């Protein structure tokens, strides 16, 4: 009798653990998308692109209105979000980054302007839509999938799968297509690439578009798993943390870092409480920077002379 109860308790614990793991993986997938979109610009132009948060925000709101007007399905909504994010990133690049590049300005101005870009998106939303909270509906209902009598949320499973597929698609694009190779060449060395006949300005716009696609997609995911509000862009800090843990400057590092961060955060929230999570995360970040600043991937990008 007692053993049976114990066994049932263990099973219950295991079930909760596995469910939390899936939650963590799904939010980790979103963080990975964010971190990779952020890292793409970092690899090419060597500055932390804070406007990525603004891109996520615009993507999320566009997707929300697309849903409101057309009653689109989940995949169509995601597509709307991604494409609007892409265009938003390109507009931002033309507005705030291209003039600085032409002037050969120090990196600090790129960084400040990217923060301005993020703020611009935030205030645009506050001025046009307002500060109210919105929510996406339950796209897939509250349906669960049962695997060996343990039920998993269908939405989380879908989100994790889509994130993984997108990341694999990105890898394929960067390593197997001509324009992907151009992006990698420019990331390696802008001047040499331009000497070899790569149209650098176009490749940089293209990079912003690709990173915007990822940003818009992650924005919609964030909107689905939390709420839609004008300060959503601040979540980019999670993407940056993921990049730091994984290693800025590498492409696969942020993916690992994002998934680690997502899982860690979910378990911290589940077992300690959501209000303590930012505190512990900050302490973990400081520890990480103190002990292994180069991240898991271990590439140090020095500031260029």
């Amino acid at each position, binding site marked *: 009798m007692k053993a049976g109860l114990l066994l049932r308790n263990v099973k219950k614990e295991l079930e909760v653990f596995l469910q939390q793991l899936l939650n963590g993986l799904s939010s980790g997938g979103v963080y990975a998308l964010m971190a990779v979109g952020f890292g793409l610009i970092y690899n090419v132009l060597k500055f932390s692109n804070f406007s990525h948060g603004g891109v996520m925000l615009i993507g999320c709101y566009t997707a929300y209105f697309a849903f409101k007007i057309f009653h689109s399905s989940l995949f169509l909504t995601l597509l709307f979000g991604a494409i609007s994010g892409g265009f938003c990133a390109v507009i931002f690049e033309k*507005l705030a980054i291209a003039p600085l590049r032409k002037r050969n300005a120090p990196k600090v101005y790129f960084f400040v302007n990217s923060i301005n870009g993020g703020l611009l998106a935030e205030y645009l939303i506050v001025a046009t839509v307002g500060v109210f909270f919105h929510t996406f509906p339950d796209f897939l209902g509250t349906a669960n999938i049962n695997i060996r009598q343990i039920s998993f949320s269908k939405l989380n499973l879908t989100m994790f799968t889509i994130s993984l597929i997108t990341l694999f698609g990105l890898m394929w694009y960067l390593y197997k297509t001509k324009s992907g190779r151009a992006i990698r060449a420019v990331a390696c060395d802008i001047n040499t690439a331009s000497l070899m006949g790569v149209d650098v300005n176009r490749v940089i716009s293209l990079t912003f578009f690709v990173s915007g696609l990822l940003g818009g997609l992650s924005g919609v995911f964030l909107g689905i798993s939390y709420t839609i509000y004008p300060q959503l862009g601040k979540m980019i800090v999670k993407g940056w943390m993921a990049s730091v843990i994984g290693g800025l400057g590498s492409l696969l590092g942020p993916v690992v870092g994002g998934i680690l961060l997502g899982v860690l955060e979910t378990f911290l929230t589940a077992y300690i409480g959501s209000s303590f999570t930012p505190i512990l995360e900050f302490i973990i970040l400081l520890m990480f920077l103190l002990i292994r600043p180069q991240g898991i991937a271990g590439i140090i990008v020095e500031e260029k002379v």
Partner: protein
Amino acid sequence: MSFYQGVIIIVVINVIAVIGNFLLTGMTGLLSFGQASFMALGAYISGLLAVKFNIPFPLAILLAIIASVFVGFIIALPVVKLRRDYFALTTFAFGEFLKAVLNLSVTITGGATGLAGIPYKVNIWIVLISLIIVILLVRNFRNSKFGKECLAIRDDELAARSCGIDSSRKKMTVFLFSVAITSFAGCLYGFYTCYIDPSMFGWTKSSELVIMVFFGGLNSLTGVIIGTTFLTLSLEILRFTGAWRMFIYVLIMIILIDFRPQGVFANWELEWTTFEKLLQVPLSIIKKEK
């Protein structure tokens, strides 16, 4: 009259906070996006000391500044040696961290409802005298040998290091100095408004402080002071336009940085010599007429 005094006090406190940020960004090239949280730290610690322990307010301010500098040291320790982006984003994360701490510690700080009942101690004279002291301190600091070495680090860190300048140590010192000034501004703010809550010192405030430095010019203390006064006043005047004012403000900043990255005032600095030169114009005219 007291309305205008209130506006002046708020403007001057803002100028002191921006000078703190200017010291950091203008002298070492580091960007801090948690500068408002150091204001919060100063305001909260001095406020709590005054409210809970009845400590006289100059001593409370002094203790608050020391505590803020200590916290700043712990945060900067892992990141001063790394790339500048790390510093900026770590200070940003610190802002989130502090907000969470302040919201959580309901029994001590009042949580999200804020800390009320701080004694009203700050009048316009205290604020103006502090501003003059801070300006003189920063000006002399910039002109000292230490300051010149810091400017060398900002312009070319590698070259400065190869000349034997210990860059991470210099960066740390300047950062702690700027934390002290910023938290001092926070203390003044707390003792003026008598009420503080965590949302006053959010990320918007931090980015405002950074934007004001870039508006005035990274190289010009005068520019930063005039620019901050102008921006704070214009934000107060344009308050009726609602959310669009911040949108337009940020858009102007982007265009300004695109086409005049050195800021409105660039390298121009108001010194005694400027007055002497101005005086010489009428003097020379008088001489010619003679």
